[in-house]
């Protein structure tokens, strides 16, 4: 009904009646059609009541009485609206209620989303500082090897830039260099003896630690460790020199460089820093013993020299803790928790999407963890409503690291014997927490590499002892116990992948030293081989062979 029709309906009524009816209809606040019907009814009622009035004044007075009889317009409007609502068909009621519910839901969702997006994290703890304190021993700076390593690395890097040829070769094992490449390397080694002497001096320091600059605003994860790449160049340079000296028969110098590489590796693992540092340290130790085995495998070295290197290695390995430390890694997760969650001052707090997005937007210094895409794939409902809050995330992180602390102190053989399926347990702990699922490192693998490193390094002692025995006695021993009985070996290393003595088999003209390997099964010294028949180093099936070398 438009205004014209309304006016037409009310035109014959006194002004007070028209006003009253208009007010009632206005207050009714319902569908137009229904209000139009009610308006027609009320107007008709007033018309009928006032039909017999002769004068306008009489009409006016009767209209006033009628208005009083109808009562308060607002109350009448409410009563009529309620009654008319009850008249509507069920489907209309359901539709109306559904729209109302949807509207309320959308409003709540909008408010919640606005609240969710408005929160900000409150970074209060300087984890860079905590990290520095954690890795630094109580020692004077003069006992720190890091400044010497860094100096050597800086000078080496400058030389690397000057020598493009050398840059291409860096990381290649010496015996894989061509006859044309070897002279280039040897010339460089001769010209840069001073740099390597600095590394040697550093390796003889009792401690190693790096100090990082940063405050609460410095994201621990953004701290880069470029020095590790440079240290790797230095380790390979020493490896080259060792192999080069061995080829010339200078075994003492070769073994000195091998021990230097080992000591550098020991520095990196001993400071119990990040997984990256520990893994690089283990790689250096592996390079050291690998180089030693290469030299022993391709050269005949006298028993006295062998005894000396065995003694040196016994001292190097003595009191080595091969257990991987996860203390420093915890700090990364704690630091990210304080940055990726808002602070509601009660310990809770929800995800701070802006920070999370930085992980996936190619921000400099951040690893591209694709965290934001992972979260989006899980669905906005998960992010907004069900993702664990800050406190829950911290608690989960604690449970995660407590679990892996226990695992780190169990050998792989123990883990297998106890039926622990690490990946399953790990997933159970972090499941549902997308942040942790993405941030936590491959802890299981790192721990396993630690034990692999242990058996790799410790296998050198019986190896050297056997070679000595062969030279002195004329044959290889029947078993490793013989070496202990005859004083060639102090004790037989235990293989952490079997919790038994290291594997040994005497063959017709040689011997095999092996570990049960990742599958913790005795494959009788049989390794896994590739398509070309070459032994695969540290495969997930077959035994790990430390001797003979190929």
């Amino acid at each position, binding site marked *: 009904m438009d205004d014209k029709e309304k006016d037409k309906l009310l035109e014959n009524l006194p002004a007070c009646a028209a006003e009253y009816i208009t007010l009632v209809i206005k207050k009714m606040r319902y569908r137009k059609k229904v209000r139009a*019907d*009610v308006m*027609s*009814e*009320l107007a*008709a*009622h007033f*018309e*009928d*009541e006032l039909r017999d009035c002769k004068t306008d004044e009489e009409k006016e007075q009767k209209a006033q009485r*009628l208005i009083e*009889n*109808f*009562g*308060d317009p607002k*109350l*009448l409007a409410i*009563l*009529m609206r*309620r*009654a*008319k609502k*009850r*008249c509507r068909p069920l489907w209309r009621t359901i539709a109306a209620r559904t729209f109302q519910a949807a509207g309320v839901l959308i409003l709540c969702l909008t408010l919640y989303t606005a609240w969710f997006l408005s929160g900000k994290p409150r970074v209060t703890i300087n984890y860079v500082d905590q990290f520095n304190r954690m890795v630094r021993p109580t020692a004077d700076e003069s006992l720190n090897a890091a400044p010497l390593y860094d100096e050597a690395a800086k000078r080496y890097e400058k030389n690397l830039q000057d020598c493009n040829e050398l840059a291409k070769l860096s990381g290649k094992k010496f015996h894989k260099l061509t006859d044309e490449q070897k002279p280039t390397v040897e010339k460089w080694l001769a010209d840069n003896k001073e740099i390597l002497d600095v590394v040697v001096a550093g390796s003889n320091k009792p401690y190693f630690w790096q100090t990082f600059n940063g405050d609460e605003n410095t994201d621990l994860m953004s701290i880069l460790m470029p020095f590790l790449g440079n240290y790797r160049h230095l380790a390979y340079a020493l490896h080259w020199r060792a192999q080069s000296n061995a080829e010339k028969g200078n075994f003492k110098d070769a073994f000195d460089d091998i021990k230097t590489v080992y000591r550098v590796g020991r520095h990196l693992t001993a400071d119990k820093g990040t997984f990256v540092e520990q893994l690089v340290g283990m790689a250096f130790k592996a390079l050291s013993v690998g180089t030693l085995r290469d030299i022993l495998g391709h050269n005949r070295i006298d028993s006295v020299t062998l005894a000396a290197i065995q003694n040196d290695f016994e001292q190097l390995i003595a009191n080595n803790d091969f257990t991987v430390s996860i203390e420093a890694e915890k700090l990364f997760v704690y630091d990210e928790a304080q940055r990726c969650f808002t602070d509601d001052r009660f310990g809770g707090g929800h995800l701070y999407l802006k920070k999370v997005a930085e992980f996936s937007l190619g921000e400099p210094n951040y690893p591209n963890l694709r965290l934001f895409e992972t979260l989006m794939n899980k669905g906005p409902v998960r992010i907004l409503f069900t993702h664990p809050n800050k406190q829950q995330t911290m608690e989960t992180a604690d449970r995660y690291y407590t679990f892996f602390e226990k695992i780190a102190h169990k050998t792989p053989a123990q883990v297998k014997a106890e039926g622990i399926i690490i990946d399953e347990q790990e997933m159970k702990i972090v499941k549902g927490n997308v942040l942790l699922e993405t941030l936590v490192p491959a802890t299981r693998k790192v721990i396993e590499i630690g034990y692999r490193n242990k058996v790799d390094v410790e296998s050198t002692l019986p190896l050297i002892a056997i070679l000595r025995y062969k030279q002195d006695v004329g044959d290889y021993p029947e078993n490793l116990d013989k070496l202990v009985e005859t004083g060639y070996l102090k004790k037989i290393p235990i293989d952490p992948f079997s919790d038994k003595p290291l594997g040994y088999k005497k063959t017709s003209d040689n011997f095999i030293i092996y570990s049960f390997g990742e599958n913790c099964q005795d494959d009788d010294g049989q390794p896994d081989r590739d398509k070309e028949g070459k032994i695969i180093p540290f495969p997930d099936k077959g035994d790990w062979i430390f001797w003979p070398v190929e």
Partner: protein
Amino acid sequence: MKFESQLLKGIAPVVVLEILSRGQMYGYELSRAVEQRSNNILTLGKGTLYPLLYNLEAKKLVKGKWETTDSGRSRRYYSITSKGKEYLAKQKTELRELATGLDFVFGIIKPA
């Protein structure tokens, strides 16, 4: 006579249905009929009339439709439905029993 609103509250629907049971009416007609047929004892306030009619319509006891009167005006006529007739019959029985009970209480009828 002005009765207590609570007294009339339960009766009003029955009264309206009874009057409509005798023929369809529009709102004004109905309010006059209530007064006339009750000998002016009962009056239905205008503020009560239309909400009552709409409620009865919602309960499907009456139904309304627009019709044009002889004079050419449109009025909404209300008529009782079969459900309304059933309801009316039941309510009348209860009210008669109530009236009889009150008569006994007031001593108008003496118990046997």
